[in-house]
């Protein structure tokens, strides 16, 4: 695919590659950051990357089906729920250690 073509005709691939980029960035955040809250944010990034994929596929599928968009709702709900629980956990950790470093989760083992 000549480079010009790629720049002019934005298609499914573009969205998918964007999604991949976003996903990897989110993953890097999860792996590298120490702050629990930032890690949660990175997870949100990854979920959003997935959402982009869903919507893109929904848009570019030959039969224009909306199932992809429906899925986005579920993902968002899960994301919200996960954020809520994650932040609640972060709060308990913070109460104990006055810090929200991921390594305190090591102490969660029974």
């Amino acid at each position, binding site marked *: 695919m000549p480079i010009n073509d790629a720049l002019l005709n934005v298609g499914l691939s573009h969205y998918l590659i964007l999604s991949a980029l976003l996903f990897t960035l989110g993953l890097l955040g*999860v*792996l590298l950051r120490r702050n629990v809250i930032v890690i949660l944010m990175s997870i949100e990034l990854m979920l959003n990357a997935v959402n982009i994929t869903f919507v893109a596929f929904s848009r570019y599928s030959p039969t224009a089906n909306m199932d992809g968009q429906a899925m986005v709702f579920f993902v968002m709900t899960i994301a919200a729920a996960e954020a809520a629980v994650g932040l609640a956990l972060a709060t308990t950790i913070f109460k104990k250690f006055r810090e929200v470093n991921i390594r305190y989760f090591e102490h969660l*083992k029974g």
Partner: protein
Amino acid sequence: MQAEFLFAILLLAPLIGFIINGLRWKSKNYLLAGSIATGAVAISFIAAVLVVMKLFGADAPKAVTVEYFKWMAVGGLEVPVAFVIDHISALMVLVVTGVGTLIHLFSIGYMSHDERPSKYFAYLNFFLFNMLLLILGENLLLMFVGWEGVGLCSYLLIGFWFSDKEKAAAGMKAFVTNRIGDAGFLLGIFTIFFLLGTVSFDEIISKVAGMPVEVGWSGPITLAALFLFIGAMGKSAQIPLYVWLPDAMAGPTPVSALIHAATMVTAGVYMIVRLSPLFILAPNALHVVAVVGAATAVFAATIGITQFDIKKVLAYSTVSQLGFMFLACGVGAFGAAMFHLVTHAFFKALMFLGSGSVIHAMHEEQDIRKMGGLKKYLPITHATFVVGWIAIIGIPPFAGFFSKDEILWKAFSSPLGHKGLWAAGVIGAACTAFYMTRLMALTFWGKPRFDEHKTHPHEAPPSMAIPLIVLAILSAIGGFMGIPHVIGEILPGHPGNWLEHWLAGSIAAPAGEAHGSAIMEWILMGISVSIAGLAALLAFSFYVIEPDRPKQWAARLPGLHRLLENKYFVDEFYFERIINPLVSGSKALWAFVDVNFIDRATFVVGDFVRGMGSTARTLQTGNMQQYALYISIAIALMFVYLLEGPKRLAELFGG
């Protein structure tokens, strides 16, 4: 009366006595306990007599057999609980119950001061029950039951005063040594069973009847005979398993008389006589028996010369006399062995009981160096002891003369005999005469060597004296049941050899011609009697006329004296070379094989697994991000795999 009934009484009377006395084992009433036990044995004796009566008469059966029930039936092995009294066991059962009754009677007086007379009598009765099983059992297995049973009772009675460590140890030694023999006996039973397919004596004898005499060493019959002889060695205290018998003197003296002189120790001889048709087929095995017997006879007699414990002297004497019996068996003179067994039972029981009487009188003193001059204190004991003494050294016409002389003559003349065996027998007899005379001299004659003001020896009560007198009479006249032909011919009425006649149908005789003539027999008889007499005179001169001489001789031959006094260091040898290495070797086994080898090997396996685990554990840090890393690595690898990454890369770079 029915044979079944009589046998039941014969066997069960002592057992019931055992149970009654066993249940009241705490009782100190020695008179009651003794009466029950003695009564039980007496009943047994009467029943035995009644059964034996059936064997007399013109058309009497050769044997009375009863069968009660099957004990074991597995595969081809059928073991009924069956008993038999034939011409061999009749002799034995009468001796055992008869002498047994007398010894029980004697025990009443002897054990009067003991803590646990009931227990003692219970054991004694139980012994008798087992002895009867041994004698009457119709098959090898039943005999083995009795065989082990008497060993057990012997253990219990030797260790009767178990608070003394030495005595308990002696009991254990006896049991274990016997067990070695028993193991051999077991192997003998196995060999016979797989050879002949039966363990019943009757069937064994009828099955071996047609078999040829085995020549070599490895034939099954020779093997069986040798195995059985190991059993006999253990029970009858032959070299090399004799060591338990002298120690067994730790038990009460009547026990020594009953078990370790008159009955149990002769079981080996009895067994060989019983299986004589089998043994006769294995001349090589018989040679072994004869040589071991002769060696034991001399060996034990020489030890007897230097012992100072009155019972030990008698014990070695017993070992030596048993050697004579095996010598007789070994040369095929089974009748002579039986004969000596019976006469020995009389005079040795007499002498043991006599020694018991002496020990009782001397307040448990057994060292003959601290006796002497007891003749005036214990006239009855002395008189009866003299009878026993004459009998054992073989002065005619006392019992010992006939039986011992027959053995010597057979050792010389039998086709299986040898002049060397005869010579060994004569030496043994000479030594016997010497040490018995020495024993008499040191115990009864000369001057008292104890404090006459402190110790007041008293003559035995009647319950102890009666058995002594009865046994003395038997020792005196017992020999007439087997008068040799050469003597019978010159006697009025020409009495034949009754015993030989009685046993003729039941025992085997060696094939081949006996050598030696009547003149020869007279000459040999003369030689042996005169040698024994000389030895006795020598001992008399040593210990009565010149009491210093023994010490001079001991000083002159220090090596020999030390060797004899220490019983050839056999016990020490066994202890140093067998028992100690066994114990320390076992400790080493435990330490090295179990703890250091097997356990360590299992630990190595365990440590390996544990090592792998702890290696893997380092991955599990609990660090959540590390876990996330693992997940991402796994996902990456999965993708690479799913997209055929390696192939694509190869395409990319390769072509």
